[in-house]
């Protein structure tokens, strides 16, 4: 947690969101500092989007405190929104306008003068590589292109804080990598980003710091590296067994690793030296279909915190 008030761009204390009797966000605390990219990692329904919507002044806070750019979303929504860029989970581009008109019109909602709007639209279309599609209707764009246009739109007011709610969900790998590259460039320009995701690789690639959310609460907080160090071993040995091999396994893996996680399709052995552990598996004459030694990832952190895997 950061120290004095004021050096956090977003500050939440006991922030709570309830829909009737259902609690979507349950008294969470976090600080997002200027210039960092801050992640919310968690499965669907963990409360990430509700948190994002409260920050973006799109959803009223039920309880607790929230300040965004030193302002209160309840009373200063307009002022806050003037300085935010929002990339929502589902694209809500203006389908009755062309690609270029989407950017120019959006600028007008921020009272940006027409000439400035046009030159920014030019720059941004180039930035998201849509300059050749400028005159096309939005509906003719692919999913990845729509996403990029939504990002360009979120940047039209030169925001101090940009919120990305699951920026790459539903995109193919190529489109994802292009998007990551653009987000990475924004980060390098010093923008403050808030990113929600249920993809581990995304969080590891893009986030300086993150919180792991599960069931409306924050389960852990830190940089990806810190979280891995704290909640996982350095390496993971992944073993796959045939049905017969698995049946004859009972207890034979005990003592080989600091922790053993049995998933439906594979078994994970948490250890600081994967190769050594694999040798020991072989010494015990345990028949293995395949074995893989890898570095621990945020997936393992999530597994260790909640006992469940993230996607699936």
């Amino acid at each position, binding site marked *: 947690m950061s120290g004095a008030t004021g050096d956090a761009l977003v500050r939440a204390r006991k922030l709570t969101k309830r*829909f009737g009797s259902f609690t979507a966000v349950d008294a969470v605390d976090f600080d997002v500092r200027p210039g960092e990219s801050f992640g919310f990692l968690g499965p669907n329904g963990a409360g990430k989007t509700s948190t994002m919507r409260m920050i973006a002044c*799109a959803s009223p806070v039920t309880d607790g405190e929230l300040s965004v750019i030193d302002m209160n979303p309840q009373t200063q929504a307009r002022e806050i929104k003037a300085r935010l860029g929002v990339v929502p989970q589902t694209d809500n581009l203006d*389908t*009755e306008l062309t690609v270029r008109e989407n950017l120019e*019109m959006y600028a007008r909602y*921020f*009272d940006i003068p027409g000439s400035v709007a046009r030159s920014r639209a030019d720059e941004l279309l180039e930035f998201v590589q849509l300059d050749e599609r400028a005159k096309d209707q939005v509906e003719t764009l692919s999913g990845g292109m729509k996403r990029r246009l939504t990002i360009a739109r979120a940047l039209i007011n030169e925001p101090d804080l940009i919120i990305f709610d699951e920026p790459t969900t539903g995109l193919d790998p190529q489109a994802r990598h292009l998007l990551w590259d653009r987000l990475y460039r924004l980060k390098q320009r010093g923008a403050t980003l808030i990113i929600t995701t249920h993809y581990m690789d995304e969080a590891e690639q893009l986030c300086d710091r993150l919180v792991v959310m599960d069931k409306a609460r924050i389960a852990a907080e830190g940089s990806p590296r810190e979280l891995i160090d704290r909640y996982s071993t350095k390496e993971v040995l992944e073993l796959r067994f045939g049905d017969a091999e698995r049946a004859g396994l009972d207890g034979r893996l005990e003592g080989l690793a600091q922790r053993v996680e049995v998933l439906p399709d594979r078994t994970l052995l948490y250890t600081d030296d994967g190769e050594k552990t694999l040798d020991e598996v072989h010494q015990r004459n345990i028949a293995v279909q395949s074995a893989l030694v890898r570095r621990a990832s945020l997936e393992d952190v999530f597994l260790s915190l909640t006992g469940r895997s993230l996607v699936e």
Partner: protein
Amino acid sequence: MRAWDVVWKARRLVERNIMVYRHQWIVILSGVAEPIFYLVGIGMGLGGLVQTVKLSDGRVISYTAYVAPALLATAAMNGAVFETIFNVFFKLNFAKTYDGILATPMGIGEIAIGEMLWALMRATLYAVSMLVLMVVLGLILSPWAILALPVTLFVAATFAATGLAGTAFLRTVQDFDIPMGLIVMPMFLFSGTFFPVSAYPTPIQLFMQATPLFHSISLIRGLTTGVVGGQQAVDFAYLLGFFSLMMVIAMRRMERKLIK
């Protein structure tokens, strides 16, 4: 001051709609044609049979002059209702256009008022073209008619607010049949549009006198034919009250629908 800020900012939504209709201006022109078709088709056709109508002050006027102000009011209603029901429903439920706009400094008030202003602009075009036609055809019988334009816009505002209030209750496209078939259509037929209310039995008369279109027609017809009195004051008061009520409902429903 605050309220004025909202109205001023609402012009952005008008700008947006102008941008959209730059590609489809023909749609707007079709709205101009509608009341003219009615006037020619019904006014002149039926006018051949009916010929004259006796007003409450005893004057006898041509049937066309009797029907024309009613068609003006109806055109204002149709333009406003179609714009606010169909177009707003689409933006609210399918395109999620408003969700995108709400992420900017625009609020629900700006959106609701912006859509109304736009509906009013369309209505102005329809009303002006209809009034010009009425002047040309000699259907304006009184200097009071000078007020017919602002009053028609007020009627359009009332129905735009009604449409906004209604659209936020609709869930599916099939639901459209309810306001269109059960409210707009009967109102069109039973609001003294084509015949004086007195031509109908008492229960229907009572229903007619309760509808906003009846009062709109009564008010506008009073102005163009020169029968201005207590009834028109009642009409205006009724419409003012109805407009305020619908505006409150529209804002509440939009807020419920958009802010979760």
